C-alpha cells in the first residue's frame, strides 16, 4: 500500500479570499511580519499500485476530478504506508 499526499493550492493569479482574511487576522493579533497567507488543502490517498503506475494514475485523478486547473495548482508526494 502506498500513501500519496496531494497539496492543492490556488493558482498564483487567483485572489484567495480566505488567505486575505487570515492575513489580516494574524496582523491584528500582533503578527505584523506576516505579509501574505495562502490557504490550500491537503488530500491523502492510500492506494495500491506499482511505483511506475502511481504517478501517472494520480496525475490522471487530479485532472479528472481532484483539481480544477482553472483555479488550482497541485503537487504530490509518494510515500510508503507501514503494513501491519
Amino acid at each position, binding site marked *: 500500500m502506498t500513501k500519496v499526499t496531494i497539496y492543492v493550492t490556488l493558482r498564483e*493569479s487567483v*485572489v484567495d*479570499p480566505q488567505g486575505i482574511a487570515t492575513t489580516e487576522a494574524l496582523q491584528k493579533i500582533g503578527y505584523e511580519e506576516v505579509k501574505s497567507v495562502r490557504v490550500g488543502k491537503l488530500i491523502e490517498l492510500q492506494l495500491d499500485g506499482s511505483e511506475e503506475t502511481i504517478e501517472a494514475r494520480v496525475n490522471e485523478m487530479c485532472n479528472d*476530478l481532484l483539481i480544477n486547473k*482553472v*483555479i488550482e495548482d497541485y503537487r504530490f508526494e509518494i510515500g510508503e504506508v507501514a503494513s501491519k
Partner: protein
Amino acid sequence: MKFAVLVFPGLTCDLDMYHAIEETVKQDVEYVWHTEADQLDQFDAVLLPTGTSYGNYLRPGALAKSSPACKQLQAFAESGKLVLGVGNGFHILVEAGILPGGFLRNKGLKFRSTQDTIRVENNNTVFTKEYTQGQMLTLPVANEFGNYYADEQTVEVLKNNNQIVFTYANENTDGSTEAIAGITNEKGNVLGMMPLPERAVEEIIGGTDGMALFQSIMNNRGEQHVN
C-alpha cells in the same frame, strides 16, 4: 415543449424550478433523478436547480462528475439542446467542462442571500430575448461560492463571443471576474447563472423579473444564438 429538472443528490431547489415552469410557461416538466438520466434526449431542455450537490465536498459541483448523468448532460448540451444551470447548477456546468471558468469562495467569505441588481448584457440569446438590452433586473442570489473566476484569455473569448449574458450592476459583492453573473457556452444553447430567476416568478415571492427568462426559452427555442 418538454422540460427536465435534473436532480443530483443535495440539490434542494428542484421544486422551485419545477414550479417556475408551471407558473410561467405551463409546459410539461418532469423531475429526472441523476441515476435515471439515460432518457434525457426525450426532453427539449434540461434545467439544473441550485442547492448543494454532494454537499459541495471537494469543490462546489465537482462530485457530480462521479454520476453517469454528467456524461448524459454533456452529450445533451453537445447536441445543441437547451441547458440552464442556476446557482449550484452553474457550478456543475463549469466542473463538467460544459462552461468555462471556476468558482471561488465569496470575497466577503459569507454565505450571501439577498436581492441583487443584474444587468442584461446580451439580450440576443434564446434565454434572454424577452428582455431588453441593458435592462436592470432584481433577482435573488443565495450562495457561498458565487465568485466566478476566469483567466484573461477566457474573458477575452467570452467577450468576443458575447457570452457574458448577465453582470452584477451595482456592487460586485462576491468578487466575480468582470462582475460576471451569467454566461453561455459558445453555441449559446447553455446558460449558467448565479442569480436565481426561478425565485422571481411571482409578486408574492418578491418579484417577477425572472419570468421573461423562461418565456424567452419558450418563445425562441428554435433559434440559434446570434452574436
